[in-house]
């Protein structure tokens, strides 16, 4: 894991001091709310329906046990005893007092954490593959690149007042577990002629105008990475629209002028920027990469202990959990454990302070002290010895964290919706709970197989509904909550945008409609097909007919 040096720590400490100063000026009336708003947003502080919400950055979703315990502490001391993990791999607290915010940031700084740029029209927290450093299919660990970008983008003087927010994701595998092409800039690390570099995609995003990012550069070597990003952001800062907040994201610019024109502008700017010498030397990426060296895996474990045969699977619940929530690790004898934060009747992505502490303990005892937050609002213990799976599972069961539903219909991504969010048109959480109740039978869930269901409570799409195999968009129809159904989206390497089936539904009506979709899937699927495969084979009309008759 990355560890701060004196410079990193000094900067985060300065930020705490700065925000304390800004809050004091706001509370004393020396600053208007209008002036304060962008400053608090750049420290992750939103004003929601009932209270302030603080979003804490989890860079590329990676946490140590010590940091995780701090998250539990913040939940206990400053919130109501729980936190909410987000689709940007961050955590947010929904019941924060403005006057406490500087103290919270000061506490976070003691464990090398912050809330810098988790909101606002700036470069946001960098996201990455949650299996980084553990996945067999990666060409490299993407996190050193993400950390390099984190540092470059932190307090960037030119890009702190962009037309709109800017999200960057970094992956390094063929399988896309981070919805890379639905980001403003997506990077995929590849090796070309023995050299590590990145494919650059730009102009993706969800929101009210979803776009899949086109490829704008097929290879950027590490030595040019920051110059290239600087050029890409500068072109956006100059030409991105500022007359209409809904047309201000880079995806609109790239769409309006075309990927070729955007690419040409960036290349021209890159030539000028490259000459400035703003790229750090190779030694800097090497310094960061060294901190992401693999943990000291136990190497005396025979390969035979690998999944699925060598562990005691006699407990059927354990076996089901292993088959569903545990993924193969690149290191023999080790496994990647997914901890679902989607228990039946729960709030997707929520965890109590006690549960967060349990996760920290498990990571410390069994997982080389590492945890990850996923964009699907779950937690990963990336480095667990396979022989320890029974012990880890038993502890998760005790903590109510052993739901064996990874990527199943009840593993729902949902935004906070109208229960918390001032932008929302409809509630997301109660709908997620109703869907979970309808599909409560675990045998049925497993029979339906991988089915990514994503709910947004408004058109801003924080719940990624465009990328759901089944997506739900909450809208306001003449003062009544109404839910539109979308089919066929994907945020993975087979990226696609969902299509709206037709007229919307009531809360109960949309649950019925989902069931008509899954019934049709079961009726027409071929062996081995996921829902998404069947949908793509038989087409939209078949399912539309199922929904509306």
């Amino acid at each position, binding site marked *: 894991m990355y560890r701060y*040096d004196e*410079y*990193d720590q*000094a*900067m985060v400490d*300065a930020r705490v*001091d*700065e925000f304390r*100063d*800004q809050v004091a*000026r706001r509370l004393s009336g*020396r600053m208007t709310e209008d*002036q304060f708003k*962008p*400053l608090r947003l750049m420290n992750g502080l939103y004003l929601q329906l009932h209270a302030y919400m603080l979003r804490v950055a989890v860079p590329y979703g990676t946490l140590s046990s010590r940091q995780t315990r701090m998250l539990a502490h913040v939940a206990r001391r400053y919130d109501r005893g729980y936190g909410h993990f987000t689709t940007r791999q961050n955590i947010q607290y929904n019941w924060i007092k403005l006057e406490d915010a500087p103290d919270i940031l000061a506490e976070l700084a003691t464990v090398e954490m912050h809330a810098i740029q988790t909101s606002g*029209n700036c470069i946001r927290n960098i996201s990455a593959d949650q299996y980084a450093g553990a996945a067999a299919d990666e060409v490299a660990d993407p996190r050193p690149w993400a950390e390099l970008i984190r*540092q*470059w983008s*932190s*307090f*960037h*003087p*030119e*890009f*702190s*007042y*962009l*037309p709109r927010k800017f999200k960057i994701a970094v992956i390094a595998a063929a399988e896309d577990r981070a919805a890379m092409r639905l980001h403003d800039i997506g990077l995929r690390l590849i090796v070309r002629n023995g050299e590590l570099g990145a494919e650059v995609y730009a102009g993706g995003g969800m929101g009210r105008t979803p776009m899949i990012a086109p490829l704008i550069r097929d290879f950027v070597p590490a030595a040019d990475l*920051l110059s290239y990003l600087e050029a890409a952001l*500068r072109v956006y*800062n*100059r030409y991105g629209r*500022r007359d209409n907040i809904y047309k201000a994201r880079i995806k609109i610019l790239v769409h309006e002028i075309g990927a070729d024109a955007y690419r040409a502008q960036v290349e021209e700017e890159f030539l*000028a*920027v490259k000459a*400035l*010498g*703003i790229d*750090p*030397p190779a*030694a*800097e990426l090497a*310094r960061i990469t060294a901190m992401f060296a693999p943990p000291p895996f136990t190497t005396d474990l025979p390969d035979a202990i690998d999944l699925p045969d060598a562990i005691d699977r006699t407990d059927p619940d354990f076996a089901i959990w292993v088959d569903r929530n545990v993924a193969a690790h690149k290191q023999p004898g080790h496994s990647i454990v997914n901890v679902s934060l989607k228990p039946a009747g729960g709030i997707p992505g929520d965890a109590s302070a006690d549960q967060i502490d349990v996760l920290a303990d498990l990571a410390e005892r069994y997982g080389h002290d590492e945890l990850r937050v996923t964009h699907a609002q779950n937690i990963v213990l990336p480095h667990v010895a396979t022989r320890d799976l029974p012990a880890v599972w038993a502890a998760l069961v005790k903590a109510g964290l052993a739901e064996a539903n990874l990527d199943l219909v009840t593993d729902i991504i949902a935004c906070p919706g109208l229960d918390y969010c001032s932008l929302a048109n409809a509630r997301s959480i109660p709908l997620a709970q109703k869907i979970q109740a309808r599909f409560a039978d675990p045998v049925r869930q497993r029979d339906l197989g991988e089915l990514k269901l994503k709910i947004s409570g408004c058109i801003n799409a924080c719940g990624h509904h465009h990328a759901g195999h089944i997506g739900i968009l909450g809208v306001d129809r003449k003062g009544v909550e109404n839910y539109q159904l979308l089919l066929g989206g994907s945020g993975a390497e087979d990226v696609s945008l969902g299509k709206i089936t037709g007229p919307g539904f009531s809360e109960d009506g949309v649950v019925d409609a989902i069931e008509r979709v899954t019934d049709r899937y079961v009726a027409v699927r071929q062996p081995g097909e996921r829902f998404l495969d069947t949908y793509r084979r038989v087409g939209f009309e078949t399912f539309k007919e199922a929904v509306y008759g």
Partner: protein
Amino acid sequence: MADPDQADIGGEPRLRFRDDEPHDEPAVTLDAFLADPGNAGAVRLEAGDDARLLGPHLDRLALVEVSFPSFRDGRGYSAARLLREAGYAGELRAAGDVLVDQIPLMRRCGFDSFAPEAEVDADALNRALDRYSLHYQAAADADAPVWRRRHG
């Protein structure tokens, strides 16, 4: 909006980080300047203007004023960096809706004078300017980025 009590300040910058004498000539628009580049030493760029058009004329200019119609409109930060990267050494003024907490960022982008339309809290500004002694990235100022401190 500008506080009417301060209207008498006019276009004079109240915050200047240069040693030379202030340039008194009123700034002309970019279009007016480009129509007759030999005739003016001071130009005002609106937020949407392309600063690169000044490229051939930078050594003749003593003042470039960049307008910030709203503190949320950040185009002027890029305009400033483009001008400094192109070699402009004259006064670079940020004018309009410029807030205390933005001035340190603007300094890093190359602005060296400021004409905020509203009163600036001098104490808060001094604290802000002194707060960050380190920077992660290279910009238009002379400060070494952290990676240079790490690797020499």
